[in-house]
């Protein structure tokens, strides 16, 4: 799936992000190719979500460039990038808690790219159908009229994924989609990602702490540490990479008393 010489779907060159004196990201180069499921891992605070923020344009990039589908998006706004076909979920679950699952999905449909007048159209029936279909796909159809705040953590994660999928994006950035989810649902999520990837050729970039999840799903993994790219390769290669092991476990090693939060 990842041919060399093929143009990456999403590419970052020298991406850096500074918060005051702190470098959350330093000179990160990476690429995601169309049709992959790629993983992004690293210890807490390594800058994974910051990278997502920069890629999805929720945050400004201090230095470097980002390209999506060959076009530079370094200075675009997040809605513009969304129109181009990029979607993401957030580390802290951001569903509309007081609204129903259905309303949540409907509020996530694709907007605009159209002229000003078009947005005064009434809500499309077509979208409702898609919302129902997606809900079914994600095992949420039986709770579709429940308030999102009443769902379990795992169901909320699924809802977030559903919301990200509503506009039919080409590239989906999932931020800790399995965090706080029980093992059965994790399997479901894994399943669905695989299905979307194989059947609909959707590309995924996953931030995860769950190594098994990554190993099962991803063909390639990038490791970040302290805002820098530490390693890149297949899951197997990564798990044997000494530097990676040290980054993750060095702080938790026996006899060591730093506890990295």
């Amino acid at each position, binding site marked *: 799936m990842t041919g060399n010489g093929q143009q990456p779907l999403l590419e970052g060159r020298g991406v850096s992000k500074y918060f005051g004196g702190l470098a959350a990201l330093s000179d990160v180069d990476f690429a995601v190719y169309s049709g992959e499921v790629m993983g992004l891992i690293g210890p807490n605070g390594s800058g994974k979500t910051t990278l997502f923020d920069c890629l999805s344009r929720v945050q400004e990039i201090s230095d470097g460039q980002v390209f999506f589908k060959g076009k530079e998006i370094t200075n675009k706004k997040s*809605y513009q990038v969304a129109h181009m076909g990029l979607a993401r979920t957030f580390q802290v679950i*951001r569903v509309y808690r007081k*609204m129903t699952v259905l309303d949540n999905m409907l509020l*996530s*449909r694709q907007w*605009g790219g159209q002229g000003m007048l078009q947005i*005064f159209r009434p809500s499309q029936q077509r979208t409702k159908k898609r919302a129902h279909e997606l809900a079914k796909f994600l095992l949420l159809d039986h709770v579709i009229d429940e308030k999102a705040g009443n769902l379990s953590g795992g169901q909320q994660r699924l809802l977030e994924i559903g*919301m990200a999928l*509503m506009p039919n994006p080409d590239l989906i950035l999932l931020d800790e989609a399995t965090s706080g989810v029980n093992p059965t649902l994790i399997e479901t999520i894994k399943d669905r990602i695989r299905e979307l990837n194989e059947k609909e050729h959707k590309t995924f970039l996953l931030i995860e702490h769950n190594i098994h999840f990554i190993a099962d799903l991803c063909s390639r993994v990038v490791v970040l540490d302290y805002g820098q790219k530490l390693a890149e390769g297949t899951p197997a290669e990564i798990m044997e990479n000494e530097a990676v092991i040290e980054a993750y476990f060095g702080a938790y090693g026996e006899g060591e008393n730093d506890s990295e939060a």
Partner: protein
Amino acid sequence: MRALAQIWQRHDLGKWIIGLIILLLLALPLLQYIPSEETLVTNLLLFSFTQMFMLVTLASNWNLTGGFTGYVDFGHAVFFGLGAYGTGIVMAKAGWPFVPALVVGAIVSAVFALLIGGATLRLKGPYFSIAMLGTLVAMREIVRVSRPLTGGGAGLTLPPYLNRPLFYYITLVLAILVVLFIRWLRQTEFGASLIAIREDEVGAEMRGINTTRHKITIFIIAAFSSGIVGGLWAYQNTFIDPDIVFLPARTVEMVMMTMLGGLGTVAGPVIGAATIYWLRDVVWANFLDYHLIMQGLLLILIVLFVPEGIMGTLGDRSGTTVGRLWGKYISPAREGTTQAEVNP
């Protein structure tokens, strides 16, 4: 409460009652011509209703940015005032007739909204609110010192035109049109986008909504509409000065009415405006001196004890509460929770 709400929905009572009320309102001035021992309908009554219709419109306009989009504007009265002055200046100084003058006033308001919105709409939560309050007060002072154009502190007198029934009808029709417009707007994608912006602006933008454009658009619409009310008010009052028109208390009224009725609902501002107006006029007319004090108290009570508003209590889920609006902007006392969101 539930049972009532269910009956309401099943028979769609709402539509019938509203229709009835509107018919009554339309007929009201005509009652003047019914011969009877007492005057049923005085000009004063008509005037009263006119004021109420204007309040309904203003509260509904405010609700557009405040309740629907979540940008609580503490200075909305500035658009009312600009409409008043735009109309007033053009009529008093240039001798224009009313209707074109009214349009000018509304346009001035809308243009100002475009200019100021570009800056203030970038601000979040309370900063936006207070920046708009500052805008209101600043504009008041600017108008005050621009004597040659605006008549300064001494005010401006418009050509008089005393026709209570006419104003009554105009404001009634305007109120109806505005509420219908808002009802329609809510069903469109634009309306749904506004609600998304209110609920989660970052998420909304991530999901493809051009938040800046949407915010400015609704801001201008609300300003234009309030500008019209301002122009009407100016003409009816025949006299305007910076203090009556750019009154922070006016914005508070709008906020209170909408909150009482139900932030972000369509009917909320209408019910809230009507309720507060009658409370004020009927109950408080007897306690004239304490009028504003009671208003302040009422505001506090509403905020603390009726967050859902009347419509919310009746089961209208489309709106929001004061609490939810800025749930993210909680005090540092809850620092623990917000840090997790802020630090990746």
